[in-house]
């Protein structure tokens, strides 16, 4: 790992107009905030959709006031039709996975803090960076237009398995224009992510300031770098897959549709395609995507924890190598989504092995976190509470992976609520806790004001308990064989489970409402919060050496020089502080143990 010595070149001048400063900005910080705001809009949209879905699942025949106004076809007299349920489900998942879980922890925080943490003035390709946001926003708008086409959004789920997704409107409501819009939106989204990933990778490799060796990068910078490498390869597969899907709709091709299919007694005019091809392409993207959502969370939690534990991690390398191992293995495990898909059953064994192995790096990260807590001087604040909550959620969601990694058990649990519980906890809620932790931690830097700590803690407690009440019972439902993606539970063996669904719905409505506390805190603190100092948490990484918020050129035109890694906590210094900032030439008198 070589040390870069070249000072970063000035990427662009100060913004001179309102448009260049706040709208079409090339400043990575503005772009990061734009991504964050997009994720906020997306998460509110996705959450409202989940509320509607949960109400329908618990009280299937209940009229939801006002829903008939929003969708006269989907909810005549306010009662949701089964197809409208599936359409909302598809949109909920697509919005959450792509525009929240990918956008907030990676694109938003990464854009804002990666150049700063590497000591750069900006990313190497600021115009590509600006483009990546506007392309992503376009993708979001295109996706939302699916609500406004005649038969609504697609109902094939976020996985959009062919041929349901490929044969057009004969397959069901939303499967014509809605599905094409969905594939178009995701194709556009991929372009934005590829541009972003290229920028992130170049920033880490080429833009580090003097003294910032790779070993001295904070956990978050590593996490965003690893995520970028995954994004570069994963989105490069999803994009052509989406293009092929669109061609099957509009150009008469048959990439995903075999011959001899009959719908409504009509032979579908396609031949020669492969249904499983879509699943292979989708999951080759889809499983790394799970890690694209969670690895930034691992970085954020490590970064927040090490600051609040006031001691170094037991091993930085163990965490970094584990993140790389997760990224590498994520490409070798995707077939575990397809154990009972009709894929060769020997392949299932081959995919099962690395899936079980991926438990090891995950366990290492968790044990290093827990082991590092031992003997620390843990500071409890909202950011660290969410980071600790992340660990608890990550463990709870992770252990259900033991079951799903095994093809024999998947026979019973495949496509049940057990899977829904697993991924919501391990990549949904855990990633959301990472986002919340990052928000409470970095808000002072991003907006120059402190968030209200009391409201933050109330938000944490209610969210922590609430999410467990929602997602732990999903596992019980799965054990009982409750199939997912059902608009109602009419089977004899499912009817006794409806009370549990009602409990989950109440918990979901409550936990969702709790998020209003966060929104209020976010907006109120943005306008009225106490002025933030440069380094409110006594952190060591480079974002804390600059004013809050930072100037347009980050370091005020100076080139920072780095002397230490970002783990210099729990040290004795001549100045009496228990930490040394990365750009401080000060040397510790004695250091806490760690490596």
């Amino acid at each position: 790992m070589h040390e870069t010595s070249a000072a970063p070149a000035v990427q662009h001048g100060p913004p001179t107009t309102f448009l260049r400063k706040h709208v079409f900005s090339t400043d990575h910080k503005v772009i990061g905030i734009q991504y964050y705001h997009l994720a906020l809009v997306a998460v509110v949209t996705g959450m409202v959709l989940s509320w509607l879905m949960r109400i329908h699942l618990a009280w299937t025949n209940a009229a939801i006031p006002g829903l008939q106004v929003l969708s006269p076809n989907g909810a005549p007299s306010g009662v949701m039709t089964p197809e409208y349920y599936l359409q909302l489900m598809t949109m909920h998942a697509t919005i959450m996975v792509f525009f929240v879980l990918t956008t907030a922890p990676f694109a938003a925080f990464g854009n804002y803090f990666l150049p700063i943490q590497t000591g750069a003035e900006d990313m190497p390709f600021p115009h590509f960076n600006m483009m990546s946001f506007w392309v992503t926003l376009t993708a979001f708008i295109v996706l939302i237009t699916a609500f406004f086409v005649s038969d609504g959004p697609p109902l094939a789920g976020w996985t959009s398995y062919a041929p349901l997704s490929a044969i057009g409107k004969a397959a069901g409501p939303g499967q014509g224009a809605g599905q094409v819009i969905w594939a178009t939106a995701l194709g556009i989204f991929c372009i934005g992510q590829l541009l972003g990933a290229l920028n992130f990778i170049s920033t880490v490799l080429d833009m580090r300031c003097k003294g910032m060796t790779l070993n001295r990068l904070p956990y978050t910078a590593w996490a965003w770098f690893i995520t970028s490498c995954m994004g570069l390869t994963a989105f490069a597969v999803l994009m052509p897959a989406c293009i092929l899907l669109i061609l099957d709709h509009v150009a008469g091709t048959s990439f995903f549709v075999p011959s001899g299919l009959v719908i409504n007694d009509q032979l579908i005019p396609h031949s020669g395609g492969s249904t499983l091809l879509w699943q292979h392409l989708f999951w080759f993207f889809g499983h790394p995507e799970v890690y694209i959502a969670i690895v930034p969370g691992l970085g954020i939690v490590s970064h927040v924890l090490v600051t609040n534990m006031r001691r170094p991690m037991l091993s930085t390398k163990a965490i970094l190598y584990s993140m790389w191992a997760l990224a590498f293995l994520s490409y070798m495990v995707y077939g575990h989504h397809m154990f009972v898909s009709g894929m060769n059953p020997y392949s299932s064994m081959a995919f099962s092995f690395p899936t079980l192995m991926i438990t090891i790096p995950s366990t290492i990260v968790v044990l290093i976190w827990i082991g590092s807590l031992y003997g620390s001087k843990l500071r409890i604040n909202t950011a660290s509470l969410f980071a600790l909550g992340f660990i608890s959620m990550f463990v709870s969601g992770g252990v259900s992976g033991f079951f799903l990694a095994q093809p024999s058990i998947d026979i019973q649990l495949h496509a049940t609520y057990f899977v829904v519980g697993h991924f919501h906890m391990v990549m949904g809620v855990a990633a959301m806790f990472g986002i919340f932790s990052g928000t409470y931690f970095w808000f002072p830097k991003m907006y120059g004001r402190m968030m209200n700590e009391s409201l933050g803690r109330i938000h944490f407690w209610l969210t922590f308990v609430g999410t467990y009440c929602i997602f732990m019972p999903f596992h019980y439902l799965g054990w009982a064989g409750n199939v997912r993606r059902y608009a109602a539970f009419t089977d004899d063996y499912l009817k006794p489970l409806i009370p549990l669904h009602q409990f989950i719905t109440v918990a979901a409505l409550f936990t969702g409402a709790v998020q209003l506390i966060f929104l209020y805190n976010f907006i109120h603190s943005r306008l009225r919060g106490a002025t933030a100092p440069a380094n409110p948490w006594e952190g060591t990484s480079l974002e804390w050496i600059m004013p809050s918020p930072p100037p347009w050129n980050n370091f005020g035109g100076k080139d920072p020089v780095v002397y230490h890694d970002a783990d210099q906590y729990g040290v004795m210094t001549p100045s009496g502080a228990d930490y040394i900032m990365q750009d401080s030439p000060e040397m510790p008198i004695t250091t806490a143990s760690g490596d």
Partner: protein
Amino acid sequence: MGKLLAVTIIVIAILSAIPVIMHTWEPPADVSTHGKLIDDQMADTMIEAGVSFLAAQFLLAIFIWQFSSRRADAKPKTFPGGAKGLVIAAIVLVGVEVLALGAFGAKAWAQVYFTPPAVDAIPIQVQAGQFAFYFRYPGPDGKFGPLHPELINEGNQNLFGLDPEHDVDSRDDIVTAEMAIPVNKEIHLLMHSKDVSHSFFVPALRIHQDFVPGLDLSVHFTATQVGKYEIVCSQLCGLGHYNMRAYLEVMSQQDYEDWLKKQAAAQ
């Protein structure tokens, strides 16, 4: 505040485990010959996952309790054994754990997928389509007539696209909307979809296999208890997905033969 979090984590961990220990929610009782292996594998995994879950949550909670309110002048301590011990523990303990699970689990999987059906297994064809399953029995000649998708016509009840006029083998085929099988007799289920992906999931039989348009797939199983069980679709197939089901009736050999005759007469 840290202590409150520690207590909350422990309470949540215990409350989460109680329904599992109490078997509050369980799959329908197994009625297959191979299901016990799957259930045993599930139980073993539950123990390993449960111990990992509780150990990690308790350890997290204990350390939060212990180290969240230390004095400002307290000295940092290092976990006994340091990172090396933890990394080795993760690799060895978890590695052995998952390898063992993988090795034992392979047995259950192999029994379902790597063993061929018995030569005298009863062949039954199942066709999935939006949003119903249909079944076909080969009739006295023991042969299925060929399928002609272009002839599928629900209006005149040609659900499989058979052409008995030209195909001799199709003439005695029996097509039904419900599935009946004899108890303790192996069934060789031949699966195809007429439109989109579906799945054949019988929770009580521990059988779960997707229908893949364009692929002919098969599974084999033996039911051990007379009774009526639900066959549900678990692969999202469209607006009526939630309502796509059929019943599997497991009968005595005599009842099965009577049922077949009755169905043949009704064709």
